[in-house]
């Protein structure tokens, strides 16, 4: 089968980019976009269908099997992992492959997703004290541990923009792990952060539904975390109110 791959080429953020079309042939119907990019980069001379030769395609990959999130990119307009997208999924034989557009471009298909990790730090997603995934909260903490931090959910989110105050689901999911296990002052600290950068900013568009490459139950985690955070907030407020009435 012959595939035409329209791949975004851009030397760096300061130069203009454009799609270049490459021919890729394979007999296998299990070849992924990640495999095709690897194969193209192995060619002694990487020429597009017009014969224009360029350097290797700059893209990120690590595990090649959907476990690390490195190869997130737009494939036919949808954020996906390149190692999870088979060429044969597209019956037209033509695929458009471009970088995620929400993040600053580094080169070609590579973007700088540092904001994801800066946000987690700013949100203070950690625990000062020991926490345990016991029988009661193990399932939730396991599920929330699986986030790849790939950025696909942020790419489709109408409320997320780099540098704005809503941090998106890639912050909500790891926070959910901690909220499920934490108590006391640690919980209160993260609860406040959660309210500020998650609850207040999510427009409930559900655009991130079914987009997570790891298949994480984002809605379920968010419902649970929102409930925990708000219930705690509500309980405290009520407690203060009651105490105030008593005195």
């Amino acid at each position, binding site marked *: 089968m012959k595939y035409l791959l329209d791949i975004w080429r851009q030397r760096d953020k300061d130069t203009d980019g454009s799609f270049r079309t490459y021919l890729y042939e394979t007999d296998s119907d299990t070849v992924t976009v990640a*495999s095709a990019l690897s194969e193209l980069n192995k060619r002694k001379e990487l020429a597009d269908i017009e014969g224009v030769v360029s350097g290797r395609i700059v893209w990120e990959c690590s595990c*090649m099997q959907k*476990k690390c999130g490195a190869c997130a990119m737009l494939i036919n307009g949808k954020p996906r992992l390149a190692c999870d997208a088979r060429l044969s999924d597209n019956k037209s034989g033509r695929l458009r492959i471009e970088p995620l557009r929400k993040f600053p471009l580094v080169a070609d298909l590579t973007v700088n997703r540092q904001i994801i990790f800066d946000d987690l730090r700013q949100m203070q997603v950690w625990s000062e004290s020991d926490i345990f995934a016991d029988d009661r909260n193990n399932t939730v903490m396991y599920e929330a*541990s699986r986030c790849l931090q790939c950025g696909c959910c942020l790419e489709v989110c109408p409320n997320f923009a780099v540098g704005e105050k809503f941090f998106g689901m890639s912050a909500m999911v790891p926070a959910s792990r901690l909220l499920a296990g934490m108590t006391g002052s640690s919980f209160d600290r993260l609860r406040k952060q959660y309210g500020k950068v998650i609850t207040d900013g999510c427009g409930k568009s559900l655009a991130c539904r079914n987009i997570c490459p790891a298949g994480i139950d984002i809605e379920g985690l968010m419902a649970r975390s929102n409930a925990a955070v708000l219930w705690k907030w509500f309980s405290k407020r009520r407690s203060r109110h009651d105490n105030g009435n008593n005195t």
Partner: protein
Amino acid sequence: MRNDTASANDILNKRPDKIPAVNIIGAGLAGLSAALALARSGISCRLVSPMPSERAQSVMAEGGINAALDTMGENDTAAGHFNDTMNGGVYLADPDAVWALCSNAPETVRMLLALGAALSTENGRPVLRSFGGQKKKRTAYARSSTGKILMTALTDAVRRYEAEGLVQRYSHHRLHSLNIRNGECFGARVLDLHRRVLSDMKGSVILASGGMNGLFPGMTTGSVLNTGDAAALAFVSGAELANPEMIQYHPTTFPISGKRCLVSEAARGEGGRLFIMRNNARWYFMEEKYPELGNLMPRDVVSREIELVRNDKECSGQVCLDMTALDRAVWESRLSDLREECIRYLGRDPAAVPLEVSPGIHYFMGGINVDKAHRTSIARLYAAGECACQYHGANRLGGNSMLGAVFGGQTAAKTAASEIIPDNAGEEEIAGGEELEIMQPAGVPDKAAELLREALGIFRSGEKLESAVQKMQELIDNENDALQRNRMILGKAVLLGALNRKESRGAHTRTDYPERDDAHYRKTTIAVFDGKEIAVSFRDIQSERGEAE
């Protein structure tokens, strides 16, 4: 718009009292564990990696982590763990180091549990499962994503110290070279892959850079990020390699495009059975040949047996792993990831049909030579995790790699902390430019890869190895690219290790020397590069625990 957090953190990190004197290369389990140990001691470090921790090979680890927690009522002990590890490694590991690993394993796992690592539990206690080469249920796990779950817990824990400036992250940075003079390491030069600039980072260096996958492109189950380049740099800079020939072929893998996909040992731990067709009937060869442990013999044994039956004239077809009898609950609770991978990349549901499997390279027991405290042969250069040779001898047991990475990272950090030279700290940007290549091939050139693949299979012969050594030298002589040259020098050291070890032991099987030879080779293979030649020798190891104390 809020303030740019990277800038804010940069300012925070440049506070004079937070200038790091330790550089960790690699942000997987070993690197994170080292960073956490240093930070908890109030010592600042840089954590350098080409991608964030979420992309490290450690997240791919599925099976579990071993510790004699004895939650299954089997009277398991650290001594049992020690004996199984030494036996599995065919007595090539340092017994003192292995005892430290095994005796500290319960505490290591408890440390991870206290970080909220969502290991599977029952009644509040970790559930343990069977893994190959072990006589007790000893492997704690988180369904089939143990590595990812441990990495998340450690990443969250380290983040707190990032905010305090004690751990300074350099994601999207790659090791360029090591500053080694007169047998001492003074720092690392790293390349910023986004800005294309080089920086000199002063201080000691802990290598936690993973295995040598780059020597075997397409043949390994691990990450393509783990090229082995850091080990190659250390080697050409004078650091000793140990047991480089000890390469673990995991018995159950299948090819996917560009690499191999692992079928975790957990599949056999849960009841998966290997068979091949012989005289038109299923032959469960492992169960017949090894009645006690059956399909759960150590990986080296299973891989050899698979090779043997595949070449048996009475057998036909490929070896298959039959998991069709496993309960639905097992698939859902413990092997869900594995099932999904098989369906996605192979187009087969292992719950419905047996899978064709064959051995693939999964782990490098050998690597940079380190002592019990994880010092390399270069002062103030340390190594931990898969890039180092420690704990696993001639064959690693399933469940011991994550344990070795976490414990090894902690140990390296403690040693590095005790040997810091305070004046050797700081950082200097030295050069930048368009010519700096940020996209590199993940593996050695095709011709070198073919030599290594042919000569370093499960069964090896002196004739093939000798020929490969000569041809590799020719390729090295004709290679102008420094990176590929270093990789091929490392590859030649692996070949020479295999050529000089004239016996069969663990993962190293010589057809011309089929017997184990303790008198001559119950020793550590040591390879050293002097800038021109590689010298290989064999160094004594103590036979019993505590002899060297």
